[in-house]
């Protein structure tokens, strides 16, 4: 077993392109062994460029990065022996079958001839592609291609795994299945996962810690809960039932925090809870005690989009492609 840590350490990483702005503009980050680190940002923020540098496919312009204990510039070949990567494109050959791909990958990764077949079968089973293994990849669905992509990244039992927007374009079922596999890899096999995504939910659900990148810089970093807590407290919105006095509902809610303007429903009344989410039960009891019926009662917790908005002045959803990007 290697004595090198399964960590990622990045200091002042920069990538400039000849005819464009800095795609990555000096980022520092550290990913602990066994952690799932979510790298969240809009299109063109610099996520994929960062991944390309950390996986040795693109030399940095400045700064340093150590992956699995090896320097990405000086020890490129060694880095590649300890990492697996599923990049933004599934990058599969439509004329080869799933099994052909695994055979090729195993050979290129130096897996002993006697072990290749068993390893391929194991991975196909693990990603649920055993039955489709001998069909050409050109006939696979998007979800199947992504699963095969993941299997190929795991052929040589890497200690670190890079996933670049792995669930883009997948249906909810396939996405959930992929999340489960990634979580299992980190939990049971101790694999360190560096995951880029533009989906809030993905970062929220999967990542132990999240780094939010915009225009090539990390604008926020922390656990999803801590980041959201920085931004603010949850709001609860009540939509009075027909015939109920709006003013009385307002007065009842105002006891638990400050009323906020703007709501999701046309006659909804929203209050930012002073006590946080624990105040919700008191709100319900108060409304009930005063006999105030409501049609809808909704809790809005701060999201990572709120975090992004607070840090950049823009919403994450709908942002993007107005700055740095991947290699032209």
């Amino acid at each position, binding site marked *: 077993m290697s004595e090198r840590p399964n960590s990622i350490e990045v200091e002042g990483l920069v990538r400039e392109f000849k005819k464009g702005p800095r795609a990555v503009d000096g980022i520092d980050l550290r990913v602990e062994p066994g952690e799932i680190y979510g790298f969240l940002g809009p299109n063109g923020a610099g996520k994929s460029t960062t991944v390309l540098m950390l996986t040795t496919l693109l030399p940095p312009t400045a700064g340093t990065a150590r992956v699995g204990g090896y320097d990405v510039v000086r020890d*490129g070949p060694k*880095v*590649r022996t300890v990492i697996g990567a599923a*990049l*933004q494109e599934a*990058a*599969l050959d439509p004329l080869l079958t799933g099994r052909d791909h695994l055979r090729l990958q195993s*050979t*290129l990764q130096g897996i002993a001839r006697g072990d290749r077949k068993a390893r391929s079968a194991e991975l196909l089973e693990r990603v649920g592609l055993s039955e489709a293994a001998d069909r050409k990849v050109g006939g696979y669905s998007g979800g199947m291609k992504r699963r095969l992509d993941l299997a190929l990244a795991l052929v040589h039992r890497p200690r670190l795994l890079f996933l670049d927007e792995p669930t883009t374009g997948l249906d909810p079922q396939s996405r959930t299945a992929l999340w489960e596999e990634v979580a299992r890899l980190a939990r049971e096999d101790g694999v360190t996962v560096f995951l880029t995504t533009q989906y809030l939910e993905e970062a929220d659900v999967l990542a132990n810690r999240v780094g939010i990148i915009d225009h090539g810089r990390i604008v926020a970093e922390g656990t999803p809960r801590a980041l959201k807590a920085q931004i603010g407290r949850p709001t609860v919105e009540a939509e009075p039932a027909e015939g109920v006095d709006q003013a009385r509902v307002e007065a009842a809610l105002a006891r638990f925090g400050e009323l906020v303007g703007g709501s999701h429903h046309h006659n909804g009344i929203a209050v930012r809870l002073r006590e946080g989410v624990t105040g919700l039960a008191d709100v319900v009891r108060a409304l009930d005690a005063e006999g105030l019926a409501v049609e809808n009662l909704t809790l809005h917790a701060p999201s990572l989009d709120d975090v992004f908005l607070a840090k950049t002045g823009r919403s994450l959803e709908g942002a993007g492609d107005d700055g740095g990007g991947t290699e032209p």
Partner: protein
Amino acid sequence: MRLVASQVGALALRSVTRTARQPASAIPPILFPVSLMLVNAAGLDASTRLPGFPTDSFLAFALAVPFIQGALFSTMNAGTDLARDIQNGFLNRLALTSMRGSALLAGQLGGIVVLGLVQAVVYLVVGLAAGVDFASGPLGVLVLLAFAALVSIGFGALGCFLALRTGSGEAIQGLFPFLFVFLFLSSMNAPRDLIGVDWFRFVATINPVSYLIECVRSLIIVGWDVQAIALGFGFAGAIGLVSLALAAGALKERLART
């Protein structure tokens, strides 16, 4: 060393498998040169009556052309396949392994050589079936197959260079007509000394493709013309070396990995 050999083998196998699974693009490079040869041989048979024409069978004269024309198609196929790998990110997947750049090139070319040899055998069988007499005999056939392999390497490496440089299959398809110029402005349809137009004869004389065709032709209709064979192998070797050097340089730039 063993790892490199198995990497080369795996990539060569992939190259052959892909071709076998695309009959629509595998068959025309074989059928088209044969069709053109048969049509040209019939249409130009009257040329054999010209004084000084080296054979009385235009088919025997023309049989050399498909070997080189097929190699041109190999250039396009090799280039297009590699360009597709670049465009869809498959090259990045390969780059993430411990695969050496030289193994990638060797694997691509290994596949091309196998296909080139298959093409060569088909052309030989067609020629023999049509009654062409192979003047250099069985040994000459082996020499011809070795030559076909060498030419495949040279043109295949050229295709790889174009792919690595442009990263675009469309660009390679666009370059195809220019490669064909080399074939047509050669001694493809007439011996150089019988070409009537001076400038055309000059261009055919300085065109390396003429010597590739004449090497094959000499094995078929003359037997053992040492000069023609030496020139053919010499030019094929030179094309191979230049193309490989260009491809290796372009690969280094394209992979750009640390």
